[in-house]
């Protein structure tokens, strides 16, 4: 991954966390806020290097916990684990397939809140849990699943805009064209 792409990914992480705190349309509509960080970590895990993925997980987690009542650092490990698993299996994943992106985003968005809650409960905190949490988890999972292909499309666009395009060579040449029939 181009260093500029990595910087853009970190900037997107920063903006995603702010968006989650500042804009509440989805929360008003569905009763839960969706988390864009798992989608960004999936992209970083599949398309970026290990350093980029680690930076996105650490920075995203810390920023998220800063705006939240979470103890600082509690979201870092769940994000990192999601990205790490995908990064270590990236050769086996068809990452250009839209469906694969959706499913991986779904899985990461489902795993991150569960792992975060487990960490919170283990460290002696008492988050607000109940049957309604199940609905919130479904909204977060689906929202993250839908957001992942969008993140891939967006960063592919950046990638095309910021990097040199690969020249495509075809076997067709105008001067070697065989013309049939009479001239």
């Amino acid at each position: 991954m181009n260093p500029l792409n990595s910087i853009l990914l970190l900037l997107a992480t920063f903006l995603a966390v702010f968006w989650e705190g500042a804009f509440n349309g989805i929360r008003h509509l569905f009763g839960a806020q969706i988390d864009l960080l798992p989608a960004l970590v999936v992209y970083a895990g599949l398309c970026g290097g290990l350093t980029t993925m680690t930076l996105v997980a650490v920075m995203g987690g810390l920023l998220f916990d800063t705006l939240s009542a979470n103890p600082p650092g509690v979201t870092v490990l769940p994000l990192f684990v999601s990205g790490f698993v995908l990064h270590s299996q990236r050769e086996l994943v068809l990452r250009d397939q839209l469906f694969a992106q959706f499913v991986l985003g779904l899985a990461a968005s489902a795993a991150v809140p569960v792992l975060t809650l487990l960490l919170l409960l283990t460290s002696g905190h008492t988050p607000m849990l109940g049957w309604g949490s199940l609905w919130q988890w479904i909204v977060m999972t689906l929202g993250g699943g839908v957001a992942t292909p969008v993140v891939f499309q967006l960063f592919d666009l950046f990638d095309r805009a910021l990097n040199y395009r690969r020249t495509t060579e075809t076997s067709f040449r105008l001067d070697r064209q065989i013309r049939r029939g009479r001239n």
Partner: protein
Amino acid sequence: MLKRSHYIALALAVLVTLILLNLPGQTAVRLKLAIGSLFLPLFGLANSTHQLADNAGEAIVPRKDLLKQNDSLRRENQEFGLRELQEAESRRENNRLRHLIGWQQKAPWKLKLANVVLREPANWWRTVQIDLGSRDGVQVNLPVLTPEGLVGKILTVGLTRSQVVLLGDPNCKISALVENDTRNMGIIESAGPFDGSLLTLDYLSKDATLKPGENVVSSGLGGIFPKGIPIGKIVDSRQVEDGLYTEARVRLAANLSGLEEVWVLFP
């Protein structure tokens, strides 16, 4: 097969998490405030955008509507002025009587208006951030309210921003009183993460008789919230723990999901 770099990254992430989770309380708060200051430019930007949208909205309101609104506000203001005169007389009388029987004088509320700038991004807490901080005299545990009723209390304080923990969050439990003949007392707690406007009034006595619609106010016990701030109204009640105590559901007076401006109550 994992490479050496993978193991190093994994170890680093675990180490960072462990260190951060074991930071002392005050250090963790300072760290959060320091990292949170990165968002200051975005707060400014969001505020300016909001103001711009407001100004644009105001510019397209017809003059006729504005005059009508102005007239109704003037009339309302006059009504409040007259009511204030009456209240002032009652207050003087109350102070005189308190003085006669040797009770402590009630200090008038000092309030400061704050804008809600950010909401909790995690779904398992209920907090908001406001644009008042330590430079405005805000301290931890100060009550936060709206004209409709109690909203919560200050959780952490930064220089220019503070985090408010809202009613219904596990970190905001309040001693409350039902305004009926028996003056039943209980603890306001969360009723679950989904409906933010419903809370539970727990640990009421087992023979408490509650009717839907009765007012619930802060009891003044605990020393954080003054007595008599409206919290909400009783929806229904039931006996729990094999009739050991009564639990009631309370519909909040303040609309927590639509908070834009709140008042911080200073001692």
